[in-house]
């Protein structure tokens, strides 16, 4: 599997390098769908320029990156393009390895279930064969690398974070890093924990002491590394200015620059009296689904991770297409759910149409002056609805497959005729 992966990496790097050289790079790095005030490259350069002028980058309202990023790019300024291409490649390789690992897990579980005779006979078509699963990691890597959204984000030099899991400590560290960068990956703490518990065969039972022991250990590692990162940032710049500038900014949404999310127009048109209330509602909305989803999906932490990443990408305060590409990279892992998906055609058409319409309506509003902000806002709404439909569709398909695996594929009603399955 190494050779196709290497080939894929070479192709991806070539595409990105080619795009960097053209004038499209400048154009793409200005687009609001791709960059947000949190992760625009222009703002990183501005932050470094302010640092050169002996002014704290957080004294103004232009720079909202964490101090680690400043220091990283202080040294890597000239190699920025290579850094981003490398980051993309590393993410792809990490995803490849992670999915491979996961596939092994799934296959093992399946084998046990088959041997334990828990699956009804007619479900054999639902079983996943090794051959089909062989190519999934490659497909995942391909999806990630060749997704136009990823390419475009790389070219725009977004500083999106990504999550890699391996050992417990490493995963805690990387999770802390991702949470440090933007607060939302905090919700990924739970699925990561569940995944690690599953790997160590610790059952998720609140009454078992081993569960609590491991949980506390993991939380301790996570919080510890987060604390270390924050204190390190304090010592890098010598002040706590970065806390309101980075986290306060993400949570209180003062900057209303249009993007592909729901927050900007909502808070541009909000009555002042209700602003705080709706801000709290929208921010809670991102974190709110963690607990119910983890309870429902405690046996399937990787799907839970996928759901979480997707929900974060839809409901966060400054989403970009880079966030989208990350969860879309996971879609090949759930290839086997295809037969149960109900809305996939509609969703893919809407997503394609919206991707095409975003730049058009932006141009009409900002440059041509013949449309107004409502047009762009409408497409953001459609885009969000399409993503929500995609996520809930995959969730439905997943749950349905699980139901079939336990209850049989061809179900019959009491009188023997073919039954339909509904959610009640």
């Amino acid at each position: 599997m190494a050779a196709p992966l290497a080939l894929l990496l070479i192709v991806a790097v070539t595409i990105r390098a080619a795009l960097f050289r053209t004038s499209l790079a400048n154009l793409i790095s200005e687009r609001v769908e791709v960059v947000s005030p949190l992760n625009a490259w222009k703002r990183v350069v501005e932050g470094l320029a302010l640092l050169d002028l002996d002014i704290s980058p957080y004294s103004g309202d232009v720079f909202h990156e964490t101090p680690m990023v400043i220091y990283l790019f202080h040294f890597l300024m000239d190699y920025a393009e290579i850094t981003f291409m490398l980051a993309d490649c590393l993410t792809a390789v990490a995803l490849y390895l992670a999915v491979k690992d996961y596939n092994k897990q799934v296959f093992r579980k399946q084998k046990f279930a088959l041997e334990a005779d828990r699956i009804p006979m007619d479900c054999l078509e639902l079983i996943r064969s090794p051959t089909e699963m062989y190519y999934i990691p490659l497909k995942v890597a391909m999806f990630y690398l060749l997704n136009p959204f990823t390419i475009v984000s790389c070219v725009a030099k977004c500083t999106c974070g990504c999550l890699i899991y391996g050992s417990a400590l490493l995963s805690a560290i990387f999770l802390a890093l991702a949470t440090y960068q933007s607060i939302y990956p905090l919700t990924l703490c739970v699925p990561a924990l569940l995944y690690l518990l599953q790997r160590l065969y610790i059952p998720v039972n609140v009454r078992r002491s081993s569960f609590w022991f491991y949980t506390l250990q993991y939380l301790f590692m996570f919080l510890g590394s987060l604390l270390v990162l924050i204190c390190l940032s304090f010592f890098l710049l010598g002040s706590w200015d970065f806390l309101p500038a980075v986290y306060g900014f993400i949570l209180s949404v003062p900057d209303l620059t249009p993007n592909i999310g729901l927050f900007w127009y909502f808070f541009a048109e909000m009555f002042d009296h209700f602003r705080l209330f709706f801000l709290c509602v929208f921010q809670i909305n991102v974190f709110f689904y963690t607990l119910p989803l983890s309870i429902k999906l405690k046996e399937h932490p990787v799907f839970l991770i996928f759901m979480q990443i997707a929900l974060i990408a839809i409901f966060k305060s400054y989403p970009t297409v880079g966030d989208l590409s990350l969860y879309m990279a996971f879609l090949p892992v759930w290839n086997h759910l295809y037969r149960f998906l109900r809305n996939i055609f509609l969703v893919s058409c809407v997503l394609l149409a919206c991707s095409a319409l975003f730049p058009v309506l932006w141009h009409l509003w900002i440059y041509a002056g013949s449309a107004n902000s409502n047009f762009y806002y409408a497409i953001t709404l459609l885009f969000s609805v399409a993503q929500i439909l995609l996520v809930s569709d995959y969730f439905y398909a997943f749950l349905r497959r699980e139901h079939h695996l336990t209850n049989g594929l061809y179900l019959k009603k009491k009188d023997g005729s073919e039954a339909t399955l509904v959610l009640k």
Partner: protein
Amino acid sequence: MAIRRLKHTRTHAHACMLQTPLDDFQEELVIRPLHSGDIYASFQFRTVWDADFMGDQKVSHYRLFPKSLGQVITKFSVRELHISFTQGYWRTMQWGQPYLPSPPGAELWVWFQDTVTDVDGTWKELTNVLSGIFCASLNFIDSTNTVQPSASFKPLGIGNVTDHSFLRYATLPREIVCTENLTPWKKLLPCGSKAGLSVLLKSEKLFHSTFHSQAVHVRPVCQDPQCRTTSMELRQTLNVVFDLHTSGQGKREWSLFKMFSRTLTEACPLASSSKVYVDVTDNPQFELSPATPLLTQAVVLGDRRTYSVYDLTQQASFGSSRSLNMLLRWKAADGEMLRPLLHSERYVAGYGLQAGEIHTLIYNHHPYRAFPVLLLSAVPWYLRLYIHTLTVSSKGKDNRPSYIHYQPSKDRERPHLLEMLLQLPPNSVTEVTVEFERALLKWTEYTPDPNHGFYVGSSVISALVPSVVAMDTNSTLDRPLFSSFFPCKEEASYFMRVYTEPLLVNLPTPDFSMPYNVICLTCTVVAVGYGSLYNLLTRTFQVDEPSPGLAKRIANVIRRFRGVPLL
């Protein structure tokens, strides 16, 4: 009892009359014909008061100095106050340099005394009080348009202050000047608008001009060359330029009556000096009537100019008709006007509502001398400047400023402040460019006509310009008021301040009719997400059993009551 009281009041009045007056009032009018055929009139009214505002002595007896301003100065511990209201933009290349420059709109800058503990709070109160005194909307001055310059705007009066935390500067480029601002301004004059030069200040003519600027400057000055005692000086200035075609009917023939629809009949009785100066340097075929024997020369703006003087305190000036109506007539001079040494322009480049660039051009027309200038720009927070895109170039080459003070803006709190010391090469154009991004504001933050755009206040360029003629450094000599406004420390250069054009920038606007719709639609999308996930989380898959007919259902209900097994 009554006799004793009468005696007390009589001795008090006697004492007042015996005291020498502590204040002095001078008025003057300078009329300068411009090269383009327009005419420039500059009024200055100066009251010098020997009261010590900075000491503990409570001042309560006001004579010539207006009480409203005196109370403001004592209450807010103001050291210097400069406020101007301007309508129109001064065209330096056509008209030359003004005696007192001012930016379009309202401008206010104040030096507080170092006894003030909370400068921001005092500033806020001061702007509100001044807004009431001048009937202007100065209450719109808040932290989002106030800056603290670090090098420009040194005190114009005495005092060697270096702590710039006591200085505040704000402009309101959108402010309109009208009769309502002129009336309270005239009320501050000792003679009001009843006698002296202020009878000429009639609003129907003054506001029918290309340029109109009225200002109030309060500063402490020295009384004697050794500066042992200080006194407070109040200067009220009014600059107006009448256009050749709209007011002058196309003829280079101006008179006081044509300009102001009034003539002068007497000097202000409270004034110690009341003079009218007419600039006769430029055109030798000048026709000025009634003729006056008095001629004086003064060095102003780096040039030695000749003036005909009419002294209104002399009855002879008014002639037999008891009124003075000067008539000036001149022919169009051939050739170019003498180019002013320092000149600047500013404009916004770029297209669309997302980003743009501000270009400031500074011209140095001196043939062989280079001199440094201080450029101050205060840009509102909703135009996010990117300081890493700042480029300064002269004659095509990069020109690094020797001093940059940049304070980045904070959203909804303070504006950008950029101050630079630039060295201008001789006979060159220096271009300062900086990119910005336009922000989307909350719908309540837009002005009533949002598509008109947002104003960016003028940039200020302060410089010591090399002078051809030796400047007069002796500040206590009896000089015309118009030549003694800016302090002169050295002979080889004079201080000049140039204001650029204000900018009008469009911002992207949301749809103002849609708040309720937007809230509903976005909440609907969030609810769609919530609903789908709620469904999938709380419901399980079940085989769909068809529901029995209506009769069977009723029968089942009855059976349930009876405790009998259902159908």
